[in-house]
């Protein structure tokens, strides 16, 4: 077996600017239970964020990217790559990233691409950005994880599938609000969740989604990273995990030795739902909104299919003075208009007019 492969670039990299986006509408998931289950059964979260009629992964990415840019203080023409990870890109063929790059003013001298890996497409873009910046090929790269989650009406996924995500501008550590101490990636071929090319809704392996998929991958990625860094849970003030529901991230955190006080700030799923490629990343933005210089943060994503990316970050002195340049993530969480299932069905395009 090969050695534990800690990922560390030649040139130290960090997050220069970060930004979140959550749409305004909220569906209390008791509404899903009312329509599909006679109001019976346990609820995995409280409510989930739902996009307006005029929103999709492109528009949400643009706003998160503008927030990240505002905090970075850099000119958009300095960005060398615009990478958007999602499983709900509006086009099957035509990049989300070119529209985002154009809207924020990063075109035309830029590498643009879309990333795909279920819920960890966004953190893959972060890994690549660290490499791109760390090798000196570019000074700045924009990595976005964003989704407007799909779910078949009445399916278990419909109780949790939310919308939102986050954008990070990765750059040299000297300008960063937090630096990457190291990262780690772990992947196997595990069929827990998929969507075929022309299918509207994804399929999932029912009971298969827990143990061999989510828990095995997130736990192994986190443990391998901690071991390679010679760190333990108590060295971190905060930790954030992929959040398909409230239970999974709490359970994996506990088995790794993290307490509720370490994961609370990043645990947004009860109020906004599972934002898929945006899930762990938007949790990190919420942590960066309150972290102090010197705080260490662990972020672990999970993507079905399956794999996990784990990152160790340390906040710098620049964080407190730059965070005020864009709206805090909690402002988006609290901006909320409650809707019922009928309005939800309309907003999600489930009513066909012709």
């Amino acid at each position, binding site marked *: 077996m090969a050695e534990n492969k800690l990922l560390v670039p030649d040139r130290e990299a960090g997050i220069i600017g970060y930004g979140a986006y959550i*749409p*305004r509408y909220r569906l209390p998931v008791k509404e899903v239970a009312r329509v599909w289950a006679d109001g019976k059964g346990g609820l995995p979260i409280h409510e989930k964020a739902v996009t*307006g009629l*005029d*929103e999709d992964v492109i*528009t949400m990415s643009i706003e998160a990217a503008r927030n990240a840019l505002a905090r970075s203080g850099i000119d958009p023409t300095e960005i060398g790559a615009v990478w958007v990870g999602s499983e709900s890109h509006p086009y099957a063929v035509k990049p989300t990233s070119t529209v985002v790059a*154009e*809207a924020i003013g990063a075109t035309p001298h830029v590498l643009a691409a879309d990333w795909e890996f279920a819920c960890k497409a966004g953190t893959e873009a972060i890994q690549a950005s660290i490499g791109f910046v760390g090798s000196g090929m570019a000074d700045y790269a924009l990595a976005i994880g964003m989704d407007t989650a799909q779910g078949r009406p009445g399916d278990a996924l419909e109780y949790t599938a939310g919308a939102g995500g986050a954008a990070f501008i990765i750059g040299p550590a000297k300008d960063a609000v937090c630096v990457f101490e190291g990262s780690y990636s772990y992947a196997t071929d595990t069929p827990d969740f998929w969507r075929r090319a022309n299918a509207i809704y994804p399929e999932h392996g029912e009971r298969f989604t827990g143990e061999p998929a989510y828990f095995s991958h997130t736990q192994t990625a986190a443990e391998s990273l901690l071991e390679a860094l010679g760190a333990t849970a108590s060295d971190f003030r905060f930790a954030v995990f992929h959040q398909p529901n409230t239970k999974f991230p709490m359970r994996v955190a506990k088995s790794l030795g993290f307490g509720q006080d370490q994961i609370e700030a990043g645990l947004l799923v009860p109020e906004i739902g599972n934002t898929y490629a945006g899930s762990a990343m938007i949790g990190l933005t919420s942590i960066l909104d309150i972290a102090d210089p010197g705080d260490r943060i662990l972020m672990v994503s999970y993507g079905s299919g399956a794999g996990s990316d784990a990152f160790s970050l340390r906040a710098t002195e620049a964080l407190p003075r730059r965070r005020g340049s864009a*709206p805090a993530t909690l402002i988006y969480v609290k*901006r909320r208009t409650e809707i019922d299932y009928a309005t939800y069905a309309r907003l999600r395009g489930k009513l066909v007019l012709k």
Partner: protein
Amino acid sequence: METSQHWRLRKQRYALVGEVCPHCESKIFPPRDICPDCGEDAREMYQFSGRGEVYSHTTVYQAPSGHAENVPYPVAIVRLEEGPLVTAQLTDVGDQPIEIGTPVEMVTRKLGADGERGMLVYGYKFRPALVER
């Protein structure tokens, strides 16, 4: 609208990019290469802040073709903080009352699609300002 026309308009439509007059400093939107204030050439690009306030507003119940699925939706004339008036849809209003003078900010949203198979069109709308200023 033709694909080529969407493409030519994308900068001004995605991000409210207009012009500034090098002679009298007037900010111009939409861009027209001639300053409406002093009549001189004005071709320098200018990125508007996106902040403004509602100058006038109404609600559309009978939508033009291609927008039927969006009714009812609010439309406003917005006074940008740099001066120009812009007509655009309001979005994400929720239960907030819209009045003359309500502070708004530009967001880039989906304006529509050319049918089931055509391209998606994105452009500016305005929403109630997220953070008080």
